[in-house]
């Protein structure tokens, strides 16, 4: 949308602390979950892969397995 001739935009470059905090939490959680989790986050829970395995299985790692490889992150 363009401004009318008699208007000017007031701009600020500062990012609020709230925005920085929210985005850093999203960054840390997402990268850890997909890239580096070895059962720390959902290791307590029953596997969601339908295998009927007991809780404690590292199913989240297996769930994200293909993206972990595809994104160049270390995996087994």
């Amino acid at each position, binding site marked *: 949308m363009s401004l009318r001739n008699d*208007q000017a935009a007031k701009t600020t470059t500062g990012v609020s602390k709230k925005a920085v905090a929210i985005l850093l939490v999203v960054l840390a959680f997402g990268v850890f979950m997909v890239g580096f989790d070895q059962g720390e986050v959902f290791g307590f829970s029953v596997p969601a892969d339908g295998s009927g395995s007991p809780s404690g299985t590292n199913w989240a790692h297996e769930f994200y397995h293909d993206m972990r490889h595809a994104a*160049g992150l270390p995996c087994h």
Partner: protein
Amino acid sequence: MRTFTFIAITLLAGAIAGTILSTINQGIVEPFIEKAIALENQKAMSSGEMINPTQFENYRIWQKGGEIAAGTILGLSLGALFGLVFAYARDSIPASSNKKKALILAVIMLFVLYIVPALKYPANPPAVGDPATISYRQSQYIGFLAISGFSALGLAFLYRKLGKDGKHEAKKILVPAIYGAIMIVAYAAMPPNPDPITAPMDLVIGFRIASGFTMGIFWALLGIILGTFWDKLKPHETTRVRTL
């Protein structure tokens, strides 16, 4: 900066780019992963392990679904980082629109966060990594990634501090040269991946090219999408005042 608009477009751009990444991976990277897993299974069966083909096929369908979810989550998180860096760096990037500025930044971040770490610790398909060394390999990768990322961040502040007045034109050569020197030292100092590559090299190299190609598409899309949103919604404009 309008906080809600900024967060919304940042996360939306990341989620879209990440979901597209995982979708195209199904056609470009998955064939290599399937071949590598078939090799793993052959090896396991030859050592006496029993694998139920139907059960395993269902398991792989579940894992491929997980890749889509993982792409969205990874896109959200890398999008969050990209949005923050873009918000602070936008004024320093020489381009006529936010879309072009975001694309330039996306190429730089692809280089710093994917290409440079991959020169030391390249992507590998399944059948290469030893589960026993995963923690060690993760710490190696995080270490090298952190050196690359924080060096680039520190040098970006230095570049900005040297000003836009043209007095410090040498910074355009000096700053990248310092980054290159740091990464060459880190490359030489960091230990190599401890796992020997036993899978066929054509499979490994094909996988690496496919991974690099789709990650390149992801970063380019992230830049284009966030830049387009930024041009349209202008989250940096807080108010519009009437002038005389």
